[in-house]
């Protein structure tokens, strides 16, 4: 089957404030299948946010091609269709809500698509229900917690019926409770609504549940595979300056001390099993 997202040798350069040309993306080739849950990790300046912005045509490649559901993002005529297909959730929950009432904000996207009012109403109610925010439909955004605001932002994207949701560090500004809420929502969307998820994060724990983890460094993909494959490469990750999930780190150190523990431990329960087997 045709992958829903295809990147072909994607490069992106921009001019810095001093006028130097800086390469943010340095030849990224990547296919993402429909229904996949992909986590992209990497530290600041690794190009992961720039990559995200290419997925709904906020940025266009300097060279190379991005296809979203077969649509080339350089094609101006397809711009709105692409943005509707690949919705985007940003880091700061405050700076992406437009309206003064939750349900009006969720309606913003469908209103822009020019849908009839009854259809918008229906979609707004559904979207709020999916993210579990229907009882806040009439609330003002500034009374909500960070996690709730982020769920409203997700509902705003859902109401546009996208096939892909790109989340650019949606949990970076949230407390642990909010982070959990948002992660549960994202997983639900992927599992039960069949939405393709591209989740950009720097919390390794959030990448553990993905189908595939992609590690970026200096505008390139340096490592990819299942979470188990990626996180067992503790040494490589450390060299780039990334962390691994705490449990994996523990396994790595125990192994270094000579204990017989597998390196691909990702969760606490697995760790408990491994230690009990010793």
């Amino acid at each position, binding site marked *: 089957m045709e992958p829903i997202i295809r990147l072909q040798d994607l490069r992106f350069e921009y001019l810095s404030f001093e006028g130097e040309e800086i390469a943010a993306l340095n030849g990224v080739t990547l296919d993402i299948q429909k229904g996949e849950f992909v986590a992209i990790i990497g530290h600041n300046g690794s190009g992961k946010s720039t990559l995200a912005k290419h997925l*709904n045509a*906020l940025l266009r490649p300097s060279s190379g091609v991005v296809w979203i559901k077969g649509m080339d993002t350089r094609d101006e005529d397809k711009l*709105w269709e692409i*943005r*509707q297909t690949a*919705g*985007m959730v*940003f880091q*700061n929950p*405050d*700076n*992406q*809500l*437009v*309206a*003064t*009432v939750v*349900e*009006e904000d969720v*309606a*913003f*996207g*469908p*209103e*822009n*698509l*020019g*849908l*009839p*009012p009854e259809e*918008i*109403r229906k979609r*707004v109610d559904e979207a709020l229900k999916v993210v579990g925010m229907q009882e806040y439909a009439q609330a*003002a*955004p*500034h*009374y909500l917690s960070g996690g709730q605001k982020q769920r409203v932002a997700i509902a*705003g*994207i859902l109401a*546009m019926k996208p096939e892909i949701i790109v989340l650019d560090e949606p949990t970076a500004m949230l407390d642990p409770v909010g982070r959990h809420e948002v992660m549960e929502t994202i997983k639900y969307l992927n599992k039960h609504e069949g939405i393709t998820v591209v989740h950009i994060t720097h919390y390794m724990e959030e990448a553990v549940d993905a189908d595939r983890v992609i590690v970026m460094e200096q505008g390139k993909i340096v490592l990819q595979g299942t979470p188990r494959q990626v996180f067992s490469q503790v040494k490589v990750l450390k060299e780039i300056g990334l962390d691994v999930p705490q449990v994996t780190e523990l396994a790595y150190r125990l192994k270094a001390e000579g204990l017989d523990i597998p390196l691909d431990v990702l969760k606490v329960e697995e760790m408990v099993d491994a230690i009990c087997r010793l």
Partner: protein
Amino acid sequence: MIRDITIGQFFPGQSIIHKLDPRVKIALTFAFIVIIFFAKTYVGYGLIFAYIAFAVWLSQVPVRYILRGLKPLLFIIVLTFLINVFFTPGSKVLFRIWAFKFTQEGLNQGIFMTLRLVLLVVGTSLLTLTTSPISLTDGIERLLQPLQVIRFPAHELAMMMTIALRFIPTLLEETDKIMKAQMARGADFESGNLFQRAKALVPLLVPLFISAFRRADELAMAMESRCYRGGQNRTRMKILKTTRRDYLAVAVTLLLIAGILLDSYVL
């Protein structure tokens, strides 16, 4: 707490006046303002007063809220009254104080001007007290929509108002945060003369502005990624509908207008 501020002076309620279509309410307020200046007799002002008193009673907004709007204007109202009383030329002199004549015409003119000002403030206060900022914006957008033919940016204007309303609490919270952060580092916002205080605001305003611009940039990107492309082809979830009570309000106002015109120009 700072996030509990109310924007404007909306007084939430479920009265008939609250439920009127905002478009109708705005239009009627304009009609009301105009008709105030057509009244020329005590009977006419009595009619207008009865009309607005009835509206206030229907709205269930406490009278002191309405009168609060008059307080800052008290000085202007008194001044207007005095100037009109003493400087209106007239023949029926009631009495004199030094060089000033106190005439019947002057007294009438003074009272009329005072009544006009008071009714003006009460009428417009009633609009803002009974209409939430959101529906006010909505009403303005739709009333101005016909002007888009001559390229008047009605949608853009309404969008700006909505975003402003959305971000006022956010920016207030942020101001509070920056202020505390600067105070923790020894900034002093409270002492000194006016000039020193204004200077002390610089370390508050600079970060606030920078952050506001960053927010604007991010918001624009988020809006674009949600397919925002201005007012064209845009539909709305909520459609304003005029109902029986709107027609009733219009009918009562038309009666008032007819009454004033009859009273001032025919009888």
